[in-house]
């Protein structure tokens, strides 16, 4: 994630100029949307399970402080050490403390978006600790020195050929073979040695069950299980919204997440961890830590409309279905969470000054809202953030940062024209007469006509035609 103010427009222009990248995304997203659709052949089933999953998430939010306390209590009873971090700096410090205490040299990581949010890898590397991403996609991205372009499929922006070149360049003795099976096996060989040798394993959390003190992780590769099973210490990171009340709340979430994300009925592994190795057990980490991160989430929670952002179960389906994401890919957002959920989450975490452009990177087509498995009103929240961006004193960090006097005057003039029938009649008549003479080089028109012909004002408005035809006015 960039630490400087970001420029979505510039980054997206760069993405659009790369036909390889665009082709990779178009193909991938078409495939994913098709696979998801095939998992929901019965609309009644979809609506029923979706309403259930949404209710599970809403109930968790309704009882959030109590459930977090309960989670802490039950995790502690299970032998899991619970840590709280208000900021990403605090979370990184907690991680470093543990790593220093156990004198860790090598860390293996399963997929965790929260640690992306924390820039944990950079912090560890700065402290001389080797950290290896083990999810294949994350590993590829780490080798490439870039960042994930999708929360579920981090290396979706690269094709097999590009990955084969990367492996050849970065892995000793790699052959130059554009074959997914070969490349996968190569990564297996490299990473197995690391799992064996690692001092600490790290992971995210898909759902934390307050009732039993259980951390649920889902994955296909087995790397998550490796990271949480083999090294002597496991540190799990979660955003504070990831708690659910009961164990029976997990099945609805598990039912929708993989189907929505990648169109598979379930992930290969559903890994439920309720503690470190107990006396008599032969494996499992001797220490398990859970780091609960706030990083702006409690502010999001404060607003009853924005709070729905925290329902998210991070399936990534909104990305797969977003026509803007499909065109520009994940890197253009310069954020750990790209696509629709990123456009509402990132500005709330990082502020509208830095991220005020993101809520506008959207046509409000509602494709994301239609498929969100927990019914987040993404576009309504997007609209609210557009208000916050131009209105000082609002609820969101850096509210009013994008306020512009010129823009405010334009809208005020627009409102005056459209709120008065007389003004409207005069204005539309003028547009009909003079509008077509406007040169295509005018600021907004220039953007419009880059690929389109100039819109032509009709000589007579519908008002005129209706009046002429004697259509009654009342």
């Amino acid at each position, binding site marked *: 994630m960039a630490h400087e103010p970001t420029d979505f427009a510039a980054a997206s222009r760069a993405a659009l100029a790369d036909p390889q990248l665009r082709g990779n995304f178009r193909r991938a997203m078409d495939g994913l949307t098709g696979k998801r659709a095939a998992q929901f052949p019965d609309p009644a089933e979809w609506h029923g399970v979706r309403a259930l999953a949404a209710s599970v998430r809403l109930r968790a939010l309704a009882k959030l402080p109590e459930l977090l306390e309960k989670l802490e209590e039950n995790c502690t009873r299970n032998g899991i050490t619970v840590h709280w971090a208000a900021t990403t700096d605090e979370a990184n410090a907690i991680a470093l403390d543990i790593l220093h205490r156990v004198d860790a040299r090598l860390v293996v990581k399963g997929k965790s978006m929260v640690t992306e949010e924390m820039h944990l890898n950079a912090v560890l590397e700065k402290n001389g600790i080797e950290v290896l991403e083990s999810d294949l996609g994350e590993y590829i991205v780490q080798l490439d020195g870039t960042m994930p372009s999708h929360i579920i499929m981090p290396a979706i922006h690269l094709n097999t050929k590009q990955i084969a070149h990367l492996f050849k360049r970065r892995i000793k003795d790699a052959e130059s073979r554009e074959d997914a099976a070969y490349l996968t096996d190569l990564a297996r060989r490299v990473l197995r040695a690391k799992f064996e040798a690692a001092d600490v394993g790290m992971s995210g959390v898909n759902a934390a069950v307050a009732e039993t003190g259980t951390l649920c992780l889902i994955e296909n590769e087995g790397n998550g299980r490796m990271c949480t099973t083999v090294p002597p210490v496991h540190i799990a990171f979660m955003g504070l919204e990831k708690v659910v009340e009961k164990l029976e709340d997990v099945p609805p979430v598990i039912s929708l997440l993989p189907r929505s994300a990648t169109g598979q009925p379930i992930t290969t592994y559903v890994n439920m961890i309720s503690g470190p190795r107990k006396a008599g057990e032969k494996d499992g980490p001797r220490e398990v830590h859970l780091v609960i991160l706030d990083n702006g989430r409690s502010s999001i929670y404060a607003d009853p409309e924005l709070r729905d952002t925290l329902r998210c179960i991070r399936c990534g389906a909104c990305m797969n279905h977003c*026509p803007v994401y499909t065109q520009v890919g994940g890197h253009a957002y310069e954020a750990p969470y790209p696509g629709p959920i990123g456009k509402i989450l990132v500005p709330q975490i990082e502020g509208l000054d830095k991220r005020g452009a993101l809520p506008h990177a959207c046509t409000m087509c509602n494709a994301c809202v239609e498929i969100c498995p927990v019914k987040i009103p993404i576009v309504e929240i997007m609209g609210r953030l557009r208000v916050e961006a131009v209105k000082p004193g609002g609820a969101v960090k850096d509210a009013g940062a994008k306020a512009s006097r010129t823009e405010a005057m334009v809208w005020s003039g627009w409102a005056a024209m459209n709120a008065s029938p007389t003004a409207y009649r005069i204005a539309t008549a003028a547009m009909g007469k003079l509008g077509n003479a406007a040169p295509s080089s005018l600021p907004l028109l220039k953007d419009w006509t880059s690929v389109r012909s100039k819109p032509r004002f009709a000589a007579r408005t519908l008002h005129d035609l209706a009046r002429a035809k004697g259509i009654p006015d009342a």
Partner: protein
Amino acid sequence: MDHQPAPTKPSRVYYFGTCLVDLFFPDAGMAGIDLLQSQGLTVVFPQGQSCCGQPAYNSGYRAEALKVARAQLDLFPGEDPIVVPSGSCAGMMRKHWPDLFRGEPDEAKAVQVAARVWELTQFLVHVLDVHLTDRGEPLRVTWHASCHAQREMGVVEEPKALLRQLANVELVELKREKECCGFGGTFAVRHPEISAAMVGDKLADIEGTEAARVVSGDCGCLLNITGALEAGGKPVRGQHIAQFLKERIHGA
């Protein structure tokens, strides 16, 4: 997004033309009136109307949107349905006006008006149950579904059902019918390159159907798609569904 219960066929309806139709597609607007009249309805077009307020609403200027929406409220007294030849503007009125007016003194009136709003094809199918007789030459067309018609008004099958009533019209559906064309109101000028890429994909999809015409129910999409078709020198023509249906049933 359930359809409101279909009222018994009224004798009189209001027509809200929308600002885009007013300025750029007045013939399509008149065609919609014609279709309603041809079903024996009295169509009332309040001359005081302008815009539903959506442009400001979606740009973060809610007070300005409210001012414009409020100026429309008194134009539709009584109980008669309000028919709109645009899924997007109908969606703004039907779905967002209640939010926009929340806590305002005229909230109840706004809610009452909003509940009477219908998208044109939805009204033709569900309320009027129209049966169209095609008098046109054989023609292959494709349908562009607007995002707001689909997802705010729940209008998906209605326009296609109307097109399928036309004996000489062959409807070939788009591969990615549900995908946005890239208009998105101010999005098209805020992010012209992305919008261009999106409409580029849409054009390819349209051309893939080998249709002579692309028909849609929303003028924002049509401005975008027909503008790009023209600029790209493509032979496919874009047309509003009201105008297309009118031409077919009159044999024009």
